[in-house]
């Protein structure tokens, strides 16, 4: 069949060759290959040209034709006749032709398939290459984006340069640099212009700086030269001074001594310096009985002063660590050298150490009655001043001595100022650190003979504690709270107060001294003008204690009303007449003579009577206590004693007749023994002509 086919093909090819090209001149092998090539090309073209659908229908048609021929042949073979053989041959030819056509169709199909595949492959390649290109482009785009970002983030050095503000720039810079017509609109150009200007300016300034530093060096050199010359003058001056000394002695001029004092005054701590300066000035101007002196170790003060200076210089660096410690100097050296406990102990000591120099005021110097010396010490750590009085007086009685005792002579210069609290609100926290309380601190101060931190002493020295004023560092502490004005303002009044206190105490001392020795003149009196005949007598005048005073029931009234406090002075006087005894508890306020002494009367006669259980004694006490000090400072106690004694007499003389046997008889003249519903007694003395009579209050 194949041979047949191929022969058929050949024949058809030949036919086609004849039909299409008609060119038979090309012969030989080459010709044959060419033809093949041509055929292939031709078929390819044909396959391209012809529609595949039509070929499909043609294929079906051809197949059905072939089938019909096979059926016909089959039918003819059954006949098996000659004629039919003939016809079979015929049909075979026909069938072969159809077969050729089939083959042709098949070939066309194959070509088409291949062409399709080729096209697909070609497309695929193209897509791949495009894809690659796309990737490349994306990558490139990313890269570029990053570059752009980097550009955006770029920091120019010029941004760190501080430039003058725009307005200033346009105001000061010359037109050549600022070029406003251009830079106004263009920000970049403006920036450049401003940088330009900055550079220009800075260059000029650095040149100026150089010039000035040269000038400074010159000046310092000059100063050095001059200082040297001054130093060389000193020995000459000293020699001159030495030469004038005989003259000074001859003329009794203490110039040099004064210089000495001023030199040590300069070493004083600021509060004490203020008080020293102010009081000396005040004494010189107004009151010659006051003198001021500086005492203490000058060398130590000098060391402290120097340390203070260098301390101040590096204070800024150490401020944070130093805040809790206010003692200047010493500290930093010790910090590293000692263990923690020792450091605390040292710091505690430093805190509680007074400034080495103290100021002493002498009031009523060289007066025959005695003088008082007040020593003021400043505690730089605690920031307050203490005052310690010293008394120099000739004669002292036992009870009287207490009046001028150093304990309380300075308390209550201002109301409620007993020196029992630290005036500095910070103190509590400062000493807390060392496990001390205020009472212990004050006991320590007392033990060391430093006196008490009275409020007036702070004002005296110009220290003003305002509780809510924050003063964190030492430097601000000094500048804020030590005020020159305050010191200046308060010095005269405090000096006057101190003087009057001292005078009052001296007066009180005299009164009590007299009472103690029962050396009182009872007949003359400033208040109750009339001379009185007093039958009772004072047998005892002793000082007593707060404990004893407050333990009495009848004194509770005074304590409750705050008329009597533990800071006052207490005395016990005993008056007797016959079997009756009057015990008087006397309280002299520490701010005497502003407050009258308060008497409390207790009568022992037929039972115990006092103001609580007996209205008559209450009235007597009222009478004793109603003398005012205003006009009778010097004899208040004896006046009160006199009232107590005459009241005692009157009580006994009005009460006595009721008892039998009558111990006390009427000795004094009174209009009525009793008056009014309260049956008050004639305690009051009046002069009626030449007679002295007693009447009700």
């Amino acid at each position: 069949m194949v041979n047949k086919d191929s022969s058929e093909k050949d024949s058809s090819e030949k036919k086609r060759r004849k039909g299409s090209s008609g060119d038979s001149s090309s012969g030989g092998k080459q010709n044959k290959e060419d033809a093949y090539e041509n055929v292939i090309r031709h078929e390819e073209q044909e396959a391209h040209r012809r529609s595949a659908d039509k070929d499909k229908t043609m294929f079906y048609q051809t197949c059905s034709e072939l089938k019909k021929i096979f059926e016909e042949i089959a039918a003819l073979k059954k006949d098996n006749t000659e004629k039919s053989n003939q016809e079979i041959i015929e049909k075979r030819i026909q069938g072969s032709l159809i077969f050729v056509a089939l083959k042709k169709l098949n070939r066309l199909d194959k070509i088409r398939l291949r062409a399709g595949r080729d096209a697909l492959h070609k497309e695929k390649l193209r897509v791949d290459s495009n894809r690659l290109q796309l990737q490349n482009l994306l990558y490139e785009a990313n890269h570029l984006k990053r570059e752009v970002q980097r550009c955006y983030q770029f920091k120019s050095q010029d941004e760190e340069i501080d430039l003058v503000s725009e307005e200033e720039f346009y105001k000061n810079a010359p037109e050549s640099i600022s070029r406003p017509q251009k830079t106004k609109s263009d920000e970049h150009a403006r920036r450049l212009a401003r940088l330009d200007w900055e550079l220009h300016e800075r260059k000029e300034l650095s040149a100026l700086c150089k010039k000035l530093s040269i000038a400074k060096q010159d000046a310092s050199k000059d100063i050095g030269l001059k200082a040297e010359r001054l130093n060389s003058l000193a020995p000459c001056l000293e020699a001159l001074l030495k030469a004038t000394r005989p003259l000074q002695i001859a003329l009794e001029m203490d110039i040099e001594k004064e210089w000495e004092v001023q030199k040590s005054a300069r070493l004083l701590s600021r509060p004490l310096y203020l008080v020293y300066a102010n009081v000396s000035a005040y004494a010189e101007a107004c009151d010659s009985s006051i003198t001021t002196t500086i005492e203490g170790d000058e060398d130590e003060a000098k060391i402290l002063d120097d340390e203070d200076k260098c301390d101040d210089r590096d204070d800024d660096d150490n401020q944070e660590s130093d805040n809790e410690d206010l003692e200047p100097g010493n500290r930093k050296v010790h910090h590293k050298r000692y263990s923690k406990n020792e450091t605390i102990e040292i710091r505690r000591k430093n805190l509680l150490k007074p400034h080495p120099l103290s100021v002493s005021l002498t009031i009523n110097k060289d007066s025959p009655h005695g003088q008082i010396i007040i020593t003021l010490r400043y505690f730089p750590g605690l920031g307050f001043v203490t005052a310690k009085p010293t008394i120099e007086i000739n004669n002292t009685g036992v009870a009287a001595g207490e009046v001028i005792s150093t304990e309380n002579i300075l308390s209550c210069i201002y109301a409620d100022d007993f020196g029992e609290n630290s005036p500095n609100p910070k103190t509590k926290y400062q000493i807390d650190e060392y496990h001390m309380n205020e009472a212990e601190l004050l006991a320590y101060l007392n033990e060391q003979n430093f006196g008490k931190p009275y409020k007036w002493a702070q004002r005296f020295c110009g220290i003003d504690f305002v509780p809510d004023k924050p003063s964190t560092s030492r430097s601000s502490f000094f500048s804020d709270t030590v005020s020159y004005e305050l010191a200046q303002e308060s010095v005269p009044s405090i000096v006057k107060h101190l003087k009057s206190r001292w005078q009052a105490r001296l007066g009180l001392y005299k009164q009590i001294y007299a009472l103690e020795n029962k050396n009182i003149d009872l007949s003359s009196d400033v208040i109750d003008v009339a001379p009185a005949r007093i039958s009772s007598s004072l047998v005892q005048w002793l000082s007593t204690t707060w404990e004893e005073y407050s333990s009495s029931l009848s004194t509770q009234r005074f304590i409750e009303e705050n008329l009597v406090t533990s800071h006052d002075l207490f005395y016990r006087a005993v008056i007797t007449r016959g079997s009756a005894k009057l015990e008087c508890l006397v309280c002299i306020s520490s701010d005497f003579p502003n407050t009258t002494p308060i008497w409390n009367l207790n009568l022992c006669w037929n039972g115990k009577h006092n103001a609580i259980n007996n209205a008559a004694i209450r009235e007597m006490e009222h009478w004793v206590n109603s003398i005012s000090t205003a006009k009778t400072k010097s004899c208040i106690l004896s006046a009160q004693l006199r009232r107590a004694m005459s009241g005692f007499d009157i009580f006994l003389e009005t009460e006595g007749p009721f008892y039998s046997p009558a111990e006390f008889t009427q000795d004094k003249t009174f209009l009525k023994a009793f008056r009014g519903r309260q049956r008050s007694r004639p305690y009051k003395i009046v002069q009626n002509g030449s007679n002295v009579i007693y009447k009700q209050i």
Partner: protein
Amino acid sequence: MGFSSRKLLYNTVLSQTLSECGNFLFVGNNFGDIFILSLERLEANNVEYDAKELPNKSPLEPTLIFTVDSKAAVNSLKFHRGFLIVGTVGSIAGYVWNEDKQQIGKKSWEVKIPSAPESIEAADVNFMWVDKASDNLFAGCGDHAVYQISLEDGRMVRTFSGHKDYIHCVTGLENNLYSASEDGTIVFWDIRECKQVGRLEPHTNADLARPEFGKWQGTVSVTNDWLICGGGPRASMWHLRSLECTNILPFPEKVHCSEFLDDLIVIAGEHPFLHQYSFNAEVVAEVPISGASAYSVVLQNEPIKLMSVGGASNFLDIYTNFNYRDLIVKLYSSKKD
């Protein structure tokens, strides 16, 4: 000692009286001041007070302090027909009481007590009693006499003289007047006839006399049948018709005040307790007082039931149920001036 401190410590209440409406209490003292207390306010406070809380709260204070005369004590006080009648030294004066403003107005009248030529002191007006029916005021004075003053025209109508010492207390009933004196007698007077109709001398009674306290009679109170008096001698109860001492009241100290309270007798004096007795002289109650001595007791049942006791103390004791002290008024406050 300053004047204000002295006032605090030595204030002595000498007299008290209640206003007609019964809502105000007037208290006079030795410094010449009158304290005005609103009883309604005290009552209101009293409700809020718990007995336990009392010590913690600040003491009550008077609404107003009115100074009559800083030199003379307010010895006696009476209230009558809108007037506060104030007896000081040598004078009796009437002040208008302004109920709405709660203020004492100006002095509207004054009667001077005539002083005897030989006396160098003006006479105290120790006690006053008003006969409400006849508008007559009876004042027992320091010059040994009782004066009858007509409140209509301020005329001194009668003088009851006969006592040998100053008068402590005056009271009356219908046409009779009773006066207690320092001379130790209680004298009964007939008001219309102005003469003595009887007298008691308790110090002559051996059961009553306490010679160490003196013979003076400090107080007298009467009802239709009974009279109580006391002073230096013991407090005693007398039957008015027979003039016999029926009961001796066991008050241990000097007597300054006596009152009838329903079926009880109230006695106060120089003793830290006020005593209440039944009519057969049994002690019913002993209530504490603030001062060393009581000089004035006032009491009322309507509109606010209370008894107020003042004496030698800056505190006024108020008893709203008569049995225990439930309010203490601090008259001068201890604020610093």
